[in-house]
């Protein structure tokens, strides 16, 4: 019996209570989201790249394929996953591609090129009653039926077990350069927004502690012209810095206190929160250590939302609560895909299955 058939059997035998299933790849994102409930269903048995044709700009892989394996295959052809998904794992807990999609987390390049969901082209999944379903496909444009594939991005395994996924890929930029500027927070936010309104090849930004770091990616001529235009100090170890940011290995991320992720309109002025903040995505993603209530209040006021990303007490829920009409749609969708509530109970919202 192949792994997918075994998964289907496990799903059929599961229920929404004692025998619920906890879908898990490498476990590199166990820290993320709500409660971890249910018997582990390890997706790593179902692995391997199914199809990759560089000229089609698409890679199709089984859920349990390590992200590292996919990135290596792409790199060998001069291509990449443009949204730079964080791995957050090593050794026995290597990130898998199914988990990348289910977690829906994107890295430093997100503001410039889009998020995971922007690159998902198709999925094959097992729903909560073990039906094997295929949505989307391997082509760039596809409006046949609702876009269920993109819906899977960030759904944290609550709608279905992603068996296989097709992702759009892009050529790696020919040239990159990293610049650094000494700027206080408010001016850095202004600068990031002003630059984003100009045709500059900015692919990532990071502000922390009075220093704004900017990455330029693109054609050699474009990167060189932008360096001249923006000024600042050229940084030698740029690539290492962005990798450390992507994997949250910068000093800012060390420590056990609860880490809040605030998603805001990029122009939101500096938040009135005590302590250090780290800003990414041109001002749209801000990190802060502190309690959920304060983070949510500040985020809501600025027109965004906050997530208790890592560490700390999760009893207040990890994700900001939804308005009632949206929560109702969420519950109905959950029931549409997983009527018995077998997948990842409580991982997204505690009261998703009713």
């Amino acid at each position, binding site marked *: 019996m192949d792994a997918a058939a075994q998964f289907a059997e496990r799903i059929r035998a599961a229920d929404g209570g004692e025998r619920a299933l906890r879908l898990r790849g490498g476990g590199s994102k166990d820290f993320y989201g709500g409660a971890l409930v249910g018997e582990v269903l390890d997706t790593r048995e179902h692995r391997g790249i199914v199809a990759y*044709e*560089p*000229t*089609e*700009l698409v890679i199709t892989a089984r859920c349990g394929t390590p992200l590292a394996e996919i990135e290596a295959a792409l790199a060998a052809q001069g291509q990449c996953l443009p949204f730079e998904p964080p791995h957050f794992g090593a050794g026995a807990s290597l990130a898998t591609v199914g988990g990348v999609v289910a977690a*829906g987390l994107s890295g430093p390049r*997100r503001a410039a090129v889009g998020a995971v969901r922007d690159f998902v082209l198709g999925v094959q999944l097992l729903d909560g009653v073990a*039906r094997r379903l*295929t*949505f989307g*496909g*391997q*082509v*760039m*444009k*596809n*409006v*046949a*039926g*609702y*876009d*269920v594939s*993109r*819906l899977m*991005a*960030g*759904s944290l395994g609550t709608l279905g077990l992603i068996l296989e996924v097709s992702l759009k890929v892009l*050529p790696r930029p020919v040239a990159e350069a990293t610049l650094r500027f000494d700027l206080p927070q408010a001016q850095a936010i202004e600068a990031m*927004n*002003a630059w*984003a*309104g*100009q*045709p500059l*090849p900015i692919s990532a930004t990071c502000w922390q502690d009075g220093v704004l770091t900017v990455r330029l990616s*693109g*054609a050699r*001529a*474009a990167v*060189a*012209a932008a360096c001249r235009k923006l000024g600042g100090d050229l940084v030698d170890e740029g690539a290492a810095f962005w990798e450390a940011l992507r994997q949250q290995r910068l000093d800012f991320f060390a420590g056990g206190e609860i880490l809040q992720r605030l*998603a*805001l*309109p990029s*122009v939101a002025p500096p938040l009135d929160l005590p302590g250090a903040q780290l800003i990414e995505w041109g001002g*749209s993603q801000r990190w802060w250590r502190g309690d959920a209530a304060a983070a949510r209040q500040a*985020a809501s006021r600025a027109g*965004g*939302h906050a997530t208790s990303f890592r560490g700390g007490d999760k009893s207040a829920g990890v*994700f900001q609560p*939804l*308005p009632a*009409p*949206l929560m*109702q*749609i969420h519950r*109905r*969708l959950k029931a*549409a895909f997983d009527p018995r509530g077998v997948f990842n109970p409580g991982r*997204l919202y505690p009261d998703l299955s009713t």
Partner: protein
Amino acid sequence: MNATSHRRHGAERDQDFGDVDRPGLLAALAAVVPPANLLVDGEDLKPYECDGLSAFRQVPLAVVLAENEGQVAAVLGICHRLGAPVVARGAGTGLSGGALPHGQGIVLSLAKMKRILHLDPVARVAVVEPGVRNLAISEAAAPHGLYYAPDPSSQIACSIGGNVAENAGGVHCLKYGLTVHNVLRVRGVTVEGEIVELGSQALDVPGYDLLALMIGSEGLLAVVTEVTVKLVPKPETARVVMASFDDVTKAGDAVAAIIAAGIIPAGLEMMDKPATAAVEPFVNAGYDLDAEAILLCESDGTPEEVEEEIGRMRAVLEGCGATGIRVSADEAERLKFWAGRKAAFPAAGRISADYYCMDGTIPRKRLGDMLRAIAGMEKKYGLRCINVFHAGDGNLHPLILYDANVPGELERTEAFGADILALSVKLGGTVTGEHGVGAEKLGGMCVQFDGEELSTFHRVKAAFDPAGLLNPGKAVPSLHRCAEFGRMHVHAGELKFPDIERF
């Protein structure tokens, strides 16, 4: 809202709306919109009987021209209470019959809601009402050096609400994305009368990505009343390479070769010889009329970047056997090269009484196979077809030329189109890349999806619209309909819907 419809949306069969109380409905509507905004006479209803796909026509019970979100909510509330179908309509340029009225229901036009509510050049967003024309957004953003990237060829006319409903694309979406990549937030009203906001000006929201689900949902999930779009900086400069080929397959291979070289052109379009012959007298674009196919390949960015990229494009195209290459010398010439491509549909309308536009997408490497197969189908059905492709995305727009007044031609045209779509699926693609399923490609959906997948779509619909009143019968076929379709087109002896009773 106050009352609940007695109807239930399900996967099995289309609901019967024969019992809708027209006088009751009209009286209730008259109480919530001004008389001028409620059309009930045959003559006034006529302009709404079809969208851009004029082969499908149906007069609705009434048309309501909403002026604000309050009216939209009130109208939906009434329809929900009385169990009447609602078909939202933007500019009516859709090419799949998505805005085709329902005979027992109303058309809810959003065309009067056309204000740009807010444009923030620093945050690079515009908040607009659904009836705002696609091009109007870019025009409003232009003084700030910004624009809205998706540029469907219909952009002077089509509405942003319709773009959201169809996930519209344009000639630049290979590099800049589709509607789904350029819309940050949609506000809408469900048929139950709830106001919902999907997405946000922050780059994400907690919970499921309902925004992605909404985009491309063809008016079946909610009525869009407000859209926040992303504005992006206008590239400093853009130039287009026009390459001629003496063989369509070579042109198709050149498309793959450009991508293989690590180039993502700002636009990459292909036209075959019959297509250039049709548009040239119309726009004088200067196309090479002897070529079997031409490619338009655009580069944008800084002048240095464009210079560098054009050089690389030229080398690849020459390596693929291009018989002629021209690079636009200035902006006027660039626009002229594109003008021909953008005028392809109207040009088809000039050389033929009617045309039927297909919209399959296939893997790029199969372009040559598809073109050869279409040439065979032209003979089989005795009809001409001109081909314009969003080649970079593998999205095909074969335009089948026919005359509806010649008995049998429409039927042959539809069979021709169905063949192209079935082949698109077989080649690993899809029946629709950007025009939507609408009323038109329901049969194709039965080819592309099985009963369980279609049932999942129906459950998604019911999550937003349990009563099944928004654009019923469109986009996702009922299982019963597929069973009937399967009876007509049994594919290679395989029956896709064996469980459904057949008539």
